[in-house]
């Protein structure tokens, strides 16, 4: 069964679809990453990058695995907590903390995936949502998490004990944490590279086949569930990477990162940008986060706006922004 987009999903044909070549996104990301701080507030840009990675990881599952998880925040958030705790309480160096967070999310992904993968489509979404709620309430109740105050004051520490990530240089427009910035940029690009690699790998092909005709893949001897689970764990771990990095950037981990609203938000990012395209989630993330940032004086109209965008995406342009562009380009060939 087509678990996602039975109405002509955006095709993955690397030959035609330049927007899916690894170079363009990476180049764009890098270029943007380098120039952005001159126009935008660096810390904000770093947050953008984290969410972009989160959305990318999510898209790996939805866009390419055809599985809609509605509880992905639990990987993002719990990794943030784990990494934060490691840095703050156990005094881990940042790289170790982030690795721990990522691994933790991966393991959590394995557990949740093992349960959820047995169901398809809507059920899958619901199951992931429910299991994520368990994680949410656990985070809320654990004393270490600091309840609704969140896990505060996560130190940035120094990378491999040499590069001080807290250090800032003043470039005339307020302090700029160069080291941290470079680090986050590197992590994000690495993450996106892995996503691209996965999509365009033998595994990616097999996954696509499974998405398109599960029974047939089974009769060809593919262990379908194992493949889906792998995709799920990968996506979870990458989300964890994003979460940990964000914790490092913002210096705190809070409940909002684990809540189902966040799960909804990452769906929106992916949908808005265009699922099944590599660049889409990045664009989506940038738009949504910027929206939150810019509208932050509009009060509850933020919710309304977000909701409206959701509706518009679903009703008007289901391919998402990038997907739409890709589609146009294909047409013109």
């Amino acid at each position, binding site marked *: 069964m*087509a*678990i*996602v*987009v*039975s*109405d002509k999903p955006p095709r993955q044909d690397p030959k035609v679809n330049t927007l899916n070549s690894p170079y363009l996104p990476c180049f764009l990301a890098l270029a943007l990453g380098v120039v952005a701080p001159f126009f935008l507030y660096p810390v904000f840009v770093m947050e953008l990058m984290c969410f972009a990675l989160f959305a990318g990881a999510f898209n790996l599952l939805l866009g390419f695995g055809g599985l*809609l998880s*509605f509880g992905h925040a639990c990987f993002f958030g719990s990794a943030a907590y784990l990494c934060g705790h490691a840095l703050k309480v156990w005094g881990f160096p940042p790289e170790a903390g982030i690795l721990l967070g990522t691994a933790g999310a991966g393991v959590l992904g394995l557990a949740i995936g093992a*349960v959820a993968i*047995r*169901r398809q*489509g*809507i*059920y899958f*979404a*619901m*199951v992931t*949502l*429910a*299991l994520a*709620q*368990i994680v949410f*309430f*656990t985070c809320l*109740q654990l004393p270490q998490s600091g309840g609704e105050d969140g896990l505060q004051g996560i130190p940035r520490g120094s990378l491999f004990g040499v590069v001080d990530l807290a250090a800032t240089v003043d470039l005339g427009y307020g302090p700029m944490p160069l080291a941290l910035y470079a680090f986050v940029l590197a992590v994000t690009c690495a993450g996106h590279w892995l996503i691209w690699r996965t999509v365009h790998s033998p595994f990616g092909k097999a996954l696509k086949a499974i998405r398109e005709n599960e029974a047939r893949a089974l009769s060809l001897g593919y262990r379908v569930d194992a493949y889906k689970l792998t995709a799920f764990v990968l996506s979870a771990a990458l989300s964890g990477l994003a979460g940990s990095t964000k914790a490092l950037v913002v210096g705190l981990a809070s409940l909002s990162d684990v809540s*189902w609203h966040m799960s*909804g938000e990452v*769906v929106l990012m992916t*949908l808005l940008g265009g699922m099944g395209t590599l660049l889409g989630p990045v664009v989506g993330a940038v738009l949504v986060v910027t929206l939150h940032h810019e509208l932050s004086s509009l*009060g*509850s*109209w*933020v*919710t*309304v706006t*977000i*909701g*409206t*965008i*959701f*509706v518009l*995406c*679903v*009703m008007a342009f*289901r391919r998402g922004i990038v997907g739409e562009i890709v589609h146009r380009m294909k047409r013109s060939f």
Partner: protein
Amino acid sequence: MDISLSSVLSQIMLGLNNGAFYALLSLGLAVIFGMLNVVNFAHGAFYMLGAFVALIGLDYLPRLLGSEAFGLGFWPALVVAPVLVGLIGVAVEKTMLRRLYQVDHLYGLLLTFGLALIFEGVFTNYFNVAGEPYGGKPPILDGAVNLGFMFFPRYRLFSIALSLAVCLAVWFVIERTRLGSYLRAGTENPDVARAFGIDVPMLRSLTYFLGVALAGLAGVVAAPIYSVSPKMGADLIIVVFAVVVIGGMGSIMGAILTGLALGLIEGTVKVFYPPLANTVIFIVMALVLLWRPTGLFGKEI
């Protein structure tokens, strides 16, 4: 905490109360999913709307029209609110949902998710987030009756009775009449159903009307017990989803029975290990799905 028989019995009563409430909500959800293949994320919002219609009808309408005469009491609200909410639902169905039946279910979920946000946001703007009291509880339902082991609020007895009655009525209409099989056929293969002379579009609107009207009704019933606030549906909805999934999506009876059962389970947990109270449902769900992937009453399709 003493675990005397009486206290256990009282907890059971309370569990039953919540159960009936879950049943009413999850029923609407199950109807909409089972018949339209739409996961109605806006269900919580419609529930909230129902409560607000009652509230506005009671407090604001008279102020607006400048006369107590125009106030909407509890009993009329019990009918008016669901119908009104249902009509809003129909509008949504006719203008938006309608265009999503052809594509993957996922889009229905996303659309309703967006709608939920919109409703919530708008009401947050005009109403006190902490909530407002609903003063419309009819005097006859005030006070409590002595059940021997506890004093149980009359109103809650009433709400149990009402919920169960409505649930059974709906179950009957869908499972025991032509309507049910028409609806099912309409979902499974609209083209052929239409070719048989079944007015599928009309049926769909009707179904969605029914589903959200149930949510609206639940809202009115809840108004006198909980304070009416824009966020009242947001968190409840996820629990209700769990109920439907456990019951087996689309299974009417499943939703009803599971709703009741989970109310009771939750009740017991609240006594013996409260911290687990709002995760227990999800844990149960995980276990059930491990054991029976289609849910307790779900058919393999």
